[in-house]
């Protein structure tokens, strides 16, 4: 099975994505209103994510879900930084695993609100 992680895109994220060359890989749901990218995850990386984050799971399509929000935010940052949807994106996230775990531990207390209005 091929594994992947979904990166959701809103207008704010679309702006940051401009110029990365990834726009052509955007997939659409809900009549084109929901935009997303799929990041490739290798078997080895999938096992590592499941081992490191106990809430993480793999759904029937092979999507890895239920990881901490801090993970998902960094996943997007890495997509922009690496300008890629390959396994090096998740590798980049896992390189910051201590930082993510620290933030994840605080997630039940605090989540930074989005910067609107």
């Amino acid at each position: 099975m091929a594994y992947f992680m979904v990166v959701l895109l809103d207008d704010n994220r679309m702006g940051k994505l401009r110029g990365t060359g990834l726009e052509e890989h955007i997939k659409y749901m809900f009549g084109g209103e929901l935009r997303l990218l799929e990041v490739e995850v290798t078997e080895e990386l999938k096992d590592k994510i499941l081992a490191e984050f106990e809430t993480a799971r793999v759904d029937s399509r092979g999507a890895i879900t239920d990881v901490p929000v801090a993970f998902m935010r960094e996943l997007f940052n890495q997509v922009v930084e690496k300008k890629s949807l390959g396994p090096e994106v998740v590798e980049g996230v896992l390189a910051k695993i201590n930082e993510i775990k620290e933030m994840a531990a605080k997630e039940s207390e605090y989540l930074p609100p989005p910067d609107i209005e």
Partner: protein
Amino acid sequence: MSGLLIERPLPHGGRLVERVIEDKRVARKIWKSCNAVYEIKPTLHYETGVPVRNVYREIMSICYGFFSPVEGSMKQAEVERVLKERRLLNEWIFPYPLVFDISKDDLNKLGVEVGDRLGLTLKGKPFAILDIEEIYEIDPEELAYKTFGDPETNPEVVQQKFDKKHPGWVIYRSHQPYVLAGKYTIINPPKFKPPFDRFWFPPRKSREEFEKRGWRTVINHQTRNVPHVGHEFLMKCAAFTGDVEPCPGILVNAVIGVKRRGDYPDEAIVEAHEAVNKYGYIKPERHLVSIVLWDMRYGNPLESLLHGIIRQNMGCTHHMFGRDHAAVGEYYDKFATQILWTKGIPSFGFPAPPTDVPYGLKIRPQNMREFSYCPTCKEMAYSETCGHKREKLSGSFLRGMVAEGVQPPSIIMRPEVYRVVVKWWKQFGYPFCNEKYVINKEKELEVDLEDL
């Protein structure tokens, strides 16, 4: 009048219970006549100590008539009858035991007896009185089991024995072992804090509001969630029921009470529903958001019965029920509520639907499935109508999106609704109810009280 027209039903029990004294002079006199005074405490989880209920909410809902014809804390014979037949001693159907429970220590300290008048304070201020007609002991664990049923006794709908993972079971399990039974009277009406104050339409007021708006028929939407577009379509389309014309009124009635972690905050729920009419998705002339105080018991069919009672008392003619109505886990059949309202559940005392038994309800159930986006129809489509593959939206997917700080597309959640979510997120530092919110809410409550 044509036989086709549906009339607004009388309150359950035939008349609205109203046990609220507004005149402070009278109230002070009553307060002076109390034999003892007791500060209302939250019910704490019998194991973890986390607040799971506050009886003040029951007192409010009883005295303002949401639970008509219930007038107070139930006597032992009434509790037994409710558990056996889901009927009050005056024959009217009712799903749950409601009691004023206290610990043995508190009972001894108070030293009250039958015939005494107990003054109840809330947040340190006089709030209500309880005229004690009976004092008896309960076994909270037995009460918890009997309240919700079990697979042997209620094989039609109960699939699994109840346990401490069920929040309603925990509420009854956490009751104190002594009950003071008798009528409540509120002698110092609490003032709702914003934003709740503008959504407070107790039955007399909601019925007056319906009259004023010319809402001949009104369909209720039960909620304890921020509305996504699927909910909006349920409301819009369920309102096409009615009689010779669609219901002119849609009442959203949000259940406000103890929260579970991961729920949206109550403040966000009521304002998000308000945003649906404020920004015209359903015009405000047709849509009214209101609240009722109740710590949800999650009793699926039993909860739906209580919801029917509350909304009939508020003056609604119709009530939407969804799959898994007010359910948690898989204790009940997913369609238990539908079964109750279409066939009845004999083991719960309903050989026929609650609308077809003596002393039953008059409100009409509207059993609904769900709406989701169909890329072929290019619209929000009804699950039982559209024959295509639809893009289903799970609650956890949407919550994940929100938690990540990604704005959901407007076909999933209206931008104005999302802005309300973010507004309260900024306030509480969290988009959902976390432990801090839950504990703080039970300390602060939705109301403040003035001096008497």
